[in-house]
C-alpha cells in the first residue's frame, strides 16, 4: 500500500490549518462473474485504490476523494476542498468529535480457501453447479440469473490524533434471481449470500440444498397456493422476515445521524427522538443486537471507519429502547463515546452511521413449538416485496414461501400473505422467540451519493400475535 500518500495528505492538511484530519487509503482486488440462463456473461477483474480524506477546517467538515496519487494533484485537490470548506463555514455546522482512545492496530481476516487460489473458471463453475441444481429439480424455471463476486480490501486508516489501523478483509458475495413457473401465477425468488471469508463460505452456506428446497416449495406455492385468511391472525415468521424487520424497523430508526436529521433529505429521519432511550417499544420478549464482531458475518469489522473499536450494541433490551448507533459526531453531542458504528462503502465517500450484523436475540422455543401455539394463522418463511417509510414507522412485508397454520399444524401453501403494519404494533405483538438462528446477507443503502454497504440481518423465528394480514 502507498501509505506515504495517506501520511503526506494528513501532514499537508495540518500544515494548511485543518483542526482535525483523517485518511482512509483503500485497495481493492476483486473478480466478478455472471451466469444468465446457463450462459456466462462478462467476467471481470480489477485492482483499484483510492484515498478518502476527512477533515475539520474552520469548524466545518470537509471530504476529499482522489485516486490519482500524484502529490501535486493531491495538494491541488485539497486546496480546492479547503477553499470550499472555508466558504461553507459561513453557514456551516460547527463540528466536533467525541474523544476516543489512540491505538495502532493491524488485523486480517484469514481465509482457508483463498480468493486468489481459485481460478476464474472455478468461480464460474460454482455458478454453473447452482444452475444445474436448479434444472435438476425438474421445476420449470425459465429465467435464471446468478452472480458471484469477491473482493480483498486492504485499508489503512490514520488520523491527526495518532490513530493507525490497518486491515485486510476478504469478502464473497453471491446473488441469484429465479423466475419459477409461467403465466400469471409465476413467482420470483432473489436472495443474496455473503461472508467476510475466503471461498470456504460457499460450502458453509449449503446453498445447493437450500436452493433446491426453495424452488420446490415455491413451485408448490405457484401450483397449489391459495389465497389465505385475512384479518387479525397469528403469524410465525422465519429468520428471513425477522431479519428484514429488525434491520428496517429497529436498526435504521436507531441511527443517531438519522435521529438528528443529518440524512433527512434522502434516507429520512426517525420516529424516535434522541430522548427516547428507556421508552417501551416492544414486548419484553424482544431484544435486538447489532454486533460487528461476529466472525465471518457479512457486516464484520473490528474497527469502524473513524478508527473506533467495534462494539456489540443492545439496541432494544426486553422491549425497551436501549441504545442508538453512534459515530464520533453524534456521540459528541451527547457527551458520550462513539459505539463504533461509522462506516463508508469505499474511499470515495464519507463514513455514515451504519448497522453491521443486526438480529433478534434467540429465545427458548423451537419453530415447531411456535407453530404448535397457533390455532389459526400463517407461517411466513420468506418474503419478496417489502418497504418502509422514511421515519421507519409504516412497513410492508409480502410473503413468498408461506403456509396456513391450522390448529398448530401446517395446512397448505398460501399466495402472498401481506403484513402492512406500524413499528410499535409489530414489536408489541411479538410474544415468543425461537431458539433457531440464521443470519442473512444484504446490501444496505444510505446516503447521497448512495452507499450500498454489506450487512447481515436475521435472528430466530418469531411468533407475532393477532396482527392484520391482507
Amino acid at each position: 500500500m502507498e501509505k506515504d500518500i495517506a501520511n503526506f495528505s494528513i501532514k499537508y492538511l495540518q500544515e494548511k490549518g485543518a483542526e482535525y484530519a483523517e485518511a482512509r487509503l483503500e485497495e481493492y482486488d476483486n473478480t466478478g462473474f455472471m451466469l444468465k440462463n446457463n450462459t456466462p456473461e462478462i467476467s471481470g477483474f480489477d485492482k483499484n485504490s483510492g484515498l478518502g480524506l476527512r477533515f475539520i477546517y474552520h469548524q466545518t467538515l470537509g471530504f476529499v476523494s482522489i485516486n490519482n496519487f500524484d502529490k501535486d494533484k493531491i495538494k491541488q485537490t485539497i486546496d480546492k476542498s479547503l477553499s470550499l470548506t472555508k466558504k461553507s463555514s459561513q453557514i456551516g455546522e460547527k463540528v466536533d468529535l467525541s474523544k476516543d482512545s489512540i491505538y495502532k492496530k493491524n488485523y486480517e481476516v484469514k481465509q482457508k480457501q483463498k480468493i486468489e487460489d481459485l481460478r476464474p473458471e472455478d468461480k464460474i463453475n460454482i455458478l454453473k453447479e447452482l444452475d444445474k441444481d436448479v434444472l435438476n429439480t425438474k421445476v420449470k424455471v425459465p429465467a435464471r440469473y446468478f452472480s458471484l463476486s469477491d473482493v480483498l480490501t486492504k485499508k489503512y486508516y490514520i488520523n491527526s490524533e495518532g490513530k493507525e489501523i490497518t486491515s485486510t478483509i476478504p469478502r464473497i458475495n453471491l446473488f441469484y434471481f429465479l423466475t419459477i413457473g409461467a403465466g400469471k401465477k409465476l413467482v420470483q425468488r432473489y436472495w443474496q449470500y455473503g461472508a467476510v471469508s475466503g471461498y470456504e463460505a460457499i460450502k458453509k452456506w449449503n446453498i445447493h440444498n437450500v436452493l433446491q428446497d426453495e424452488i420446490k416449495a415455491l413451485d408448490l406455492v405457484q401450483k397449489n397456493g391459495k389465497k389465505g385468511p385475512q384479518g387479525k391472525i397469528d403469524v410465525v415468521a422465519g429468520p428471513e422476515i425477522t431479519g428484514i424487520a429488525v434491520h428496517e424497523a429497529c436498526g435504521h430508526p436507531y441511527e443517531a445521524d438519522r435521529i438528528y436529521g443529518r440524512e433527512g433529505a434522502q434516507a429520512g429521519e426517525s420516529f424516535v427522538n434522541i430522548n427516547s432511550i428507556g421508552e417501551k417499544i416492544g414486548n419484553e420478549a424482544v431484544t435486538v443486537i447489532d454486533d460487528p464482531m461476529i466472525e465471518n458475518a457479512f457486516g464484520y469489522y473490528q474497527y469502524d471507519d473513524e478508527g473506533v473499536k467495534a462494539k456489540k450494541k443492545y439496541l432494544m433490551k426486553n422491549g425497551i429502547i436501549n441504545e442508538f448507533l453512534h459515530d464520533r459526531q453524534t456521540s459528541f453531542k451527547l457527551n458520550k463515546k462513539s459505539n463504533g458504528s461509522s462506516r463508508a462503502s469505499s474511499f470515495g465517500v464519507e463514513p455514515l452511521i451504519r448497522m453491521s450484523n443486526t438480529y433478534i436475540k434467540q429465545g427458548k422455543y423451537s419453530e415447531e413449538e411456535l407453530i404448535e401455539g397457533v390455532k389459526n394463522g400463517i407461517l411466513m418463511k420468506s418474503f419478496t416485496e417489502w418497504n418502509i417509510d422514511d421515519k421507519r414507522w409504516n412497513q410492508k412485508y409480502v410473503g413468498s414461501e408461506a403456509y396456513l397454520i391450522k390448529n398448530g399444524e401446517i395446512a397448505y401453501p398460501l399466495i402472498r400473505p401481506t403484513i402492512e403494519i406500524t413499528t410499535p404494533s409489530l414489536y408489541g405483538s411479538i410474544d415468543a422467540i425461537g431458539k433457531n438462528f440464521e443470519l442473512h446477507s444484504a446490501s444496505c443503502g444510505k446516503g447521497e451519493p448512495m452507499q450500498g454497504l454489506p450487512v447481515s440481518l436475521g435472528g430466530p423465528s418469531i411468533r407475532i400475535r393477532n396482527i392484520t394480514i391482507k
Partner: protein
Amino acid sequence: MKEKLAKYINKELVKKGASDVVVNVGEVDAKQVKFVNNEIVKTGVEFIDHLDVFANFKNKLVSTSLRDFSQAAADKLIKEILAFSKNIQKKDDYYGVAKGDFKYKNVKDLYDKKYDNIDMVDLTMKAINASLVNGKRSSGILESNKFKNYLLTSNNVEKEQEGTHFYLSLRSFYDKDSSGHKNVAGRMLKDFNVEYAGLKAGEIAKDSRKPKKGNPGKFDVILDPLASAPLLDNIGNSASIFSVESGTSFFMDKLNQKVANNNFTLYDDATYANGLNSSDFDGEGSPSQKTTVIKNGVLKSYLHNASTAKKYKTKSTGNAGLVSPDPSNIVLDNGSKSVESLIKDVKDGLYITNVWYTRFTNYATGDFSTIPRDGIFVIKNGEINGAVNNIRISENMLNILNNIKDRANDLQQIRSWEAEIPVIAPSILVKDMNITRPVL
C-alpha cells in the same frame, strides 16, 4: 498519456487475438455540498481518473481497468487480461461491439463552460433561503461535476466527449409531520434553478401541515414528476433486453403488443439537449439515438446494444452497456394542461408529490408497491382539500400504464435517489390507483 496508453492497449490486445476491444478513458472532477437544517454539514471535492478495458477473445468477455497509468502497468495488465481470458468460459450468444466508422451529431447543451465559476455555497444559500419563504428547515445536497471521456475501440471508433452535471435535491420541513421535496438537475447552469426547487419544496411542506390518516381504496392520482420518475425509471429498465432475458422485465413477450393506454408514448432519448445521460455516443461508440419504446400504447422496441441487436435480428438502439443495454434518458412528452387544470378534472383523488422505496413482488408481472412521502394532498371535486400521510401505492406497472389518462404541461428533468436513470416527464394523472395503509 492515458489516450496514448489506450491506443497501445487496444493495439496489443488485437495483436494477441482479441476480436473486439473497447477502451474508455476519462476523468471526473466533482464538488458537493451537503446541508442539514439550514446549515452546511459537509463539503466534498473529488478527482477520479479511469481507464477501463473490455476485450472479447473468441466470445470470452473480459472487463478490467488500469490503475497506474504507466507503460509497465499497461504491459502487466495486458498479460493479466490474456491469462484471465484463457480461464473463463464462452458467451455463445455474443456478436461483437459496434462497427464504425460512424457519423455523429453533436448533442446540444452537454457542457457548460462556466463550470469553474460555479459558487456552490452561494447556490446552496439561495436554495435554502428560497425554501425558508414557506418552510422552516431544509436539508439536501448540491452536486456539480465536470468530466472528460475518450472512447477507443478496435472497430474504428475514436471519440471524445466533455460534459458537466448539476444536481440539487432539497427537502423542506415545516414541522415533524409535514415536508416537501424538489429536485432540479441538468447539464447547463442557465436552466439550473435552485430557487425554484427551494420555493416549491417549502410550499409543499407548508401546505402539507396537519396531515390526516390517509384512506385505503381506489383513487385518481396525480403524480408530480418527482413521484412518477421512479415508476418511469422501472419502465425504462424493463425495456432493456437484458432485463427481459433475466426475468426482471414486465415487458417479456410483449413486443408489438398493447402495454399502455392509447395516449401513452415513451422514448429513450440519449440525444435530449441538456439530458443528464445524453451523449454523442454510447458505451461502444454507436451514435446516440432517440428510440420510441412505447408508441400509442404499443411496445415498439426493447433497448439494445450491437450484440443483442444482432442476436434478435434488429438494429442497435445505441444503449450499450457492453453486456447490459441500459436506458439513457426516459422521456415522456409534455402535456397541454396545467397541473391546476388536471386537479380540476379529479373528483375524488390524491395529488402525490414524491414516493420512495419502490419494491417489486414480481418483476415479470409488474406487481409492486411504493410509499408516498412529503406532501400528499386530497383532491375533492376538483380542489385540494388538506393533506394525508401513512399510505402506500400497492399496484401493478401494466395497470398503471393502462390507466395514465392525462399529462400536465410541467415537464421536468428528474434524477433522484429513487430514479437513477434520468426521467424527463410532466405530472401525470393515473385513474383508479390502489392505495393501502397499515393497520394502526
